[in-house]
């Protein structure tokens, strides 16, 4: 089903980080400026309030100019700009990819089977087109005739061509890919303008990005906090006027006069308190999360699916290709009746020389690796007749001068031994039973020398080879609270053996598509979220039912329609990474929210004494940072508030470091870094900025 997965590194590795190129900042500046338009900004209420505040202070600075007023005003505008920049940078990374994709679909011509030529954009659902070597496939569809090698690098970035053929699970082709050889007939399965590439472009550009459920919930919390702080600051004014009137002899400052707290300082206080840090970075985090998936060649059809991936409780994984290598492989030679292992290996290798199945190749390789037996070229050996495998004989073999070797299913080979005068011992039967019992496939090897009765040499133990590192990966999953379930067509006994070896939590043996669907429904009934991968048409119902359904790009159109993600690499193991990216997305949001809120503590210690120490000198005790002056304190808080956004853009794009672990240790770690860090960092930052701004004349 899947080809390129054998060599994929599957050792446990945390989600890799994306990077931030400084050039991106510069390139995104025009977009960031364009986003100052309130009609765009209203979707981000926190930043909209900052902008309204900035407009207000601008007016104040114009009518009553001062150095303090202008610097504050500039930094308030910068705060909004930095927020826009974060979003623009995140979007910019998708734009480049979209441009490449657009090239792929330019000026394509479709050659209909009836001979007409039309532009690809006019293709309708159900049209049948012919594509020959060197041409670009004009739209998404299924191959209904022929076989061809196709270069899909325009979409997957993978330069090795893939085979597409009519019928079966490898019939789907994507518009914009190039046929390298042969000729295929394709029935178009897309509506105009809704091709896979169109959807990809829309996705990576974030054109119609919708807020995900968690994002909405978080926005509500941020809105509530914003309202609270607005109230807290606005209602302060009558109290400030009262206090100032009480201490009428106290000198006026930049922050407070007889009319109460000055407009500039009031706005500064609001901006410092409302959760600007997370408000500024929230959409960038979401876009970057999708982008991280795109970088791993996974297309999520909705942000909701990415978020759901973080919530997954149960992973359904196909055995073949995901948990085990594609095919069974020879793992051991078990000789019988005093035969040496080397003899058995030699005979087994000889009998497999002409066997081009993966199983056959693995026998040759095992003999070479374990016993140093070099394989001889079948063509170079004289007087040799190879006996091919047939469904009737259920064995294959080789006839050498004076020697016949047979290899195959136990019952068939035993029968052959008896027919040729041999008497197989109990031992061979016992080994065969043992191998079957552990989920392996036994192949019996027997030989007959001229004039002697045939005898069994031993058993080749074929088994499913679990990919390296899978057990660790599943242990990791368990620590994250995710159950892994292996889906296989094997009988329960074999399935159990492999499940035990791989370390999955459960298995579904002799699985039919209906079984899968039922299993998913059962899990969901219990309140669990299920993720699965699939590629065949018969996987479609299960993919649609699963909360996260990852369709392989090699799969059928039906599967791709049904899933909510498509993996362009067609690597089922990637499901695990998708889960990690989903979690990382949520953690980044939570961590920056915590950071944003805990930041406020230090800001209070800067601004409250700055506002009121002139009236009540005792409040200067709260000026624990010993900031230079009321003006410098307020300015430092505003500047810190703006700079912290820029400082955190890389983190927002990259996501916080995620190492698979249980909830308790994750919380402890993130709380320590972003909670405690959020308390401490601004104390240091504001003090440092204050050390600089105190030299500005007039502050």
């Amino acid at each position: 089903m899947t080809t390129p997965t054998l060599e994929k590194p599957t050792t446990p590795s945390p989600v890799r980080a994306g990077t931030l190129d400084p050039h991106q900042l510069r390139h995104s500046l025009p977009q960031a400026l364009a986003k100052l338009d309130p009609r765009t900004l209203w979707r981000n209420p926190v930043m909209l309030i900052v902008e309204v505040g900035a407009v207000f202070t601008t007016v104040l600075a114009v009518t009553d100019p001062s150095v303090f007023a202008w610097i504050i005003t500039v930094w308030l505008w910068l705060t909004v700009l930095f927020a826009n920049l974060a979003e623009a940078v995140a979007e910019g990374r998708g734009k480049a990819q979209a441009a490449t994709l657009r090239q792929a679909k330019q000026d394509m011509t479709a050659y209909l089977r009836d001979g007409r030529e039309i532009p690809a954009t006019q293709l309708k659902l159900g049209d049948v087109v012919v594509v020959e070597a060197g041409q670009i496939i004009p739209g998404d569809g299924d191959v209904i005739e022929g076989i061809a090698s196709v270069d899909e690098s325009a979409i997957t970035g993978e330069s090795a061509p893939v085979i597409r053929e009519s019928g079966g699970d490898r019939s789907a082709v994507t518009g914009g890919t190039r046929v390298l050889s042969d000729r295929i007939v394709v029935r178009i399965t897309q509506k105009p303008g809704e091709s896979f590439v169109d959807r990809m472009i829309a996705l990576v550009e974030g054109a119609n990005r919708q807020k995900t459920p968690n994002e909405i919930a978080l926005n509500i919390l941020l809105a509530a906090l914003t309202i609270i702080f607005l109230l807290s600051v606005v209602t302060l004014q009558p109290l400030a006027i009262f206090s100032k009137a009480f201490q009428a002899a106290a000198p006026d400052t930049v922050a407070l006069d007889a009319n109460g707290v000055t407009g500039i300082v009031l706005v500064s206080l609001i901006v410092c308190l409302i959760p600007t840090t997370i408000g500024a970075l929230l959409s960038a985090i979401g876009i970057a999360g999708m982008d991280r998936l795109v970088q791993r060649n996974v297309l999520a059809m909705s942000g909701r699916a990415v978020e759901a991936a973080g919530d997954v409780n149960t992973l359904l994984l196909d055995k073949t290709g995901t948990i085990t290598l594609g095919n069974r492989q020879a793992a051991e030679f078990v000789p019988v009746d005093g035969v040496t292992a080397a003899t058995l290996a030699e005979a087994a290798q000889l009998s497999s020389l002409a066997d081009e199945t993966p199983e056959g190749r693995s026998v040759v390789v095992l003999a070479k690796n374990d016993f140093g037996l070099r394989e001889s070229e079948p063509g170079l050996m004289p007087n040799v007749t190879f006996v091919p495998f047939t469904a009737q004989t259920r064995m294959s073999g080789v006839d050498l001068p004076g020697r016949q070797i047979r290899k195959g299913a136990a019952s068939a080979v035993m029968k052959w031994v008896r027919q040729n005068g041999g008497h197989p011992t109990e031992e061979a039967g016992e080994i065969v039973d043992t191998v079957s019992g552990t989920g392996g496939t036994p192949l019996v090897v027997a030989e007959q020398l001229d004039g002697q009765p045939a005898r069994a040499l031993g058993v080749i133990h074929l088994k499913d080879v679990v990919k390296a590192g899978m057990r660790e990966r599943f242990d990791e999953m368990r620590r994250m609270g995710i159950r892994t379930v292996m889906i296989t067509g094997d009988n329960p006994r074999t399935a159990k053996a492999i499940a035990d070896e791989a370390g999955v939590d459960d298995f579904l043996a002799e699985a039919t598509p209906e079984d899968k669907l039922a299993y998913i429904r059962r899990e969901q009934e219990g309140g669990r979220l299920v993720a699965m991968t699939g590629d065949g048409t018969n996987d479609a119902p299960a993919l649609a039912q699963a909360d996260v359904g990852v369709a392989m790009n090699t799969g059928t159109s039906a599967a791709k329609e049904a899933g909510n993600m498509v993996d362009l690499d067609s690597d089922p193991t990637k499901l695990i990474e998708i889960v990690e990216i989903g979690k990382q997305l949520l953690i980044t949001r939570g961590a920056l929210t915590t950071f944003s809120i805990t930041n406020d503590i230090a800001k209070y210690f800067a601004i409250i004494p700055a506002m009121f120490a002139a009236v009540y000198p005792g409040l200067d005790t709260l000026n624990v940072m010993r900031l230079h002056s009321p003006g410098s304190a307020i300015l430092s808080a505003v500047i810190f508030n703006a700079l912290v956004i820029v400082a955190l853009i890389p983190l927002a794009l990259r996501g916080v470091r995620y190492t698979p672990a249980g909830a308790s240790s994750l919380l402890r770690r993130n709380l320590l870094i972003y909670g405690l860090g959020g308390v401490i960092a601004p104390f240091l930052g504001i003090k440092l900025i204050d050390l600089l701004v105190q030299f500005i004349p007039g502050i």
Partner: protein
Amino acid sequence: MAGWLFVITLVLALVAVYKPFGDYLYRVVSGTRDNVVERGVYRLVGVDRNAAQTWGVYARSVLAFSAVSILFLYAFLRLQDKLWLSLGFDPLPGHLAWNTAVSFTTNTNWQAYSGESTMGHLVQMAGLAVQNFVSASVGIAVAVALVRGFAARKSATLGNFWVDLTRITLRVLLPVAVVFAVIFMAAGMVQNLSGGVDVTTLTGATQHITGGPVASQEVIKELGTNGGGFYNVNAAHPFENPATWTNWIQLFLILLIPFSLPRVFGRMVGQNRQGYAIAAVMAILAVASVALTIGLEVHGAGTVPQAVGAAMEGKETRFGIPNSAAYAAITTLTSTGSVNSFHDSYTALGGMMPMINMMLGEVAPGGVGAGLYGLLILAVITVFVAGLMVGRTPEYLGKKIGAREMKIASSYFLITPALVLIGTAAAFATGNNATALNVGPHGLSEVLYAFTSASNNNGSAFAGITVNTPWWDTALGLAMLLGRFLPIVLVLALAGSLARQKVTPESEGTLPTHQPLFVGMVVGVTVVLVALTFLPALALGPIAEGLS
């Protein structure tokens, strides 16, 4: 030393009753068998005791019952001179009747009047004391409904308000009240229907010694975290609080139900440890607050306290500083609001503690029922932030905290701070702060305290401010009304939303909500959010005063 002993024995007593009393409460609210009296009540009011209510119906029942209560009490107060046992007192003016009716129905018991010179015995007994019982039951019922929301699986209903109200009143409040009223009488509290006697004192002057049903009202005042005293000076009056040991019992009664409700929560959701976690949050905040208040008062800064050796102004010599300070902290940590000393006379920072206690949202342990639901809302907000940090859609007890839940929890969280801040600002903006005795920071504290107390349904007064004016009666009445019923409607909406959900099974990836880390985080969220909201206002009041 005696002061610490007082606090420690209180803690031990509460620990001792947590399980048995909590289990008893649990059986009361989840039992299905009715006794004769209850069946009679249901028949009388026409309630089908088996009809489960959706959150909307439950909320409408609460609101309807409370509306009728307010109207009834208002009429009662306006007509008291026409009724028996009025002791010759005049009917209350409209604004005061409104304020008082709202105050007692909302479990606030803010008293803009002086009890012994305003209220006849019948009003005290049949009007105010009745509301002391039922308003407490309403609070517990709403909390229980919320917990049912957490415990339910795909259910549309939350139980029946009328059944909850009846059972809690008859099986919990009444029996405990009767027992302790007798104990109080034995301690020397007054309990009669006398209009009082005039006696000639040794110096030859005439003194009026009041009588009345004090003990019976006193007990439910504490047990139901109501706080409305029979006398103007509340529990500082020897007839309301004769001795140190009655002082101890009063505090025990105040804390009894609020601290036992987490047990009900744990039992109902089937995980006692969740109850312990909530109780732990309450206990940490409460113990810290009591210790701070006592500490600030005992070592009180200020010229006078240092001159005389102790901050005794406004405190009863019978109780001394620690017992007074402990009372002040506990009465404001719960939504009781009865007092045995005068918070206005506390040291600046010591007097800030009761204010902060109320600003916490009355959650440590809070009013009966209201404390539990308030804290669960804070826990929901904590779960949301913490849940994101562990990389999952946040869930609390298997219930997802999504957009709808956050909308409700955030609105809940907004209401009381909004009422406090807007009310205080309005008082200053309209010049109504002028009725405060003081100017400067202390005058600011007096106004801030009044709105904090009313909006959080506490009812204690800082004193030092005349609040029986039409503006104050109306404004504080509104603050009490909105501060009680908006949150209740939201809590029930949340309960409805949670009840409809299925339960996500727990796994290693689920945020554990019973461990110290989470307990600490809820404490942190509660304190930080309050600090961030009220710090500017406090800075101009008690902090400015205390640091000068």
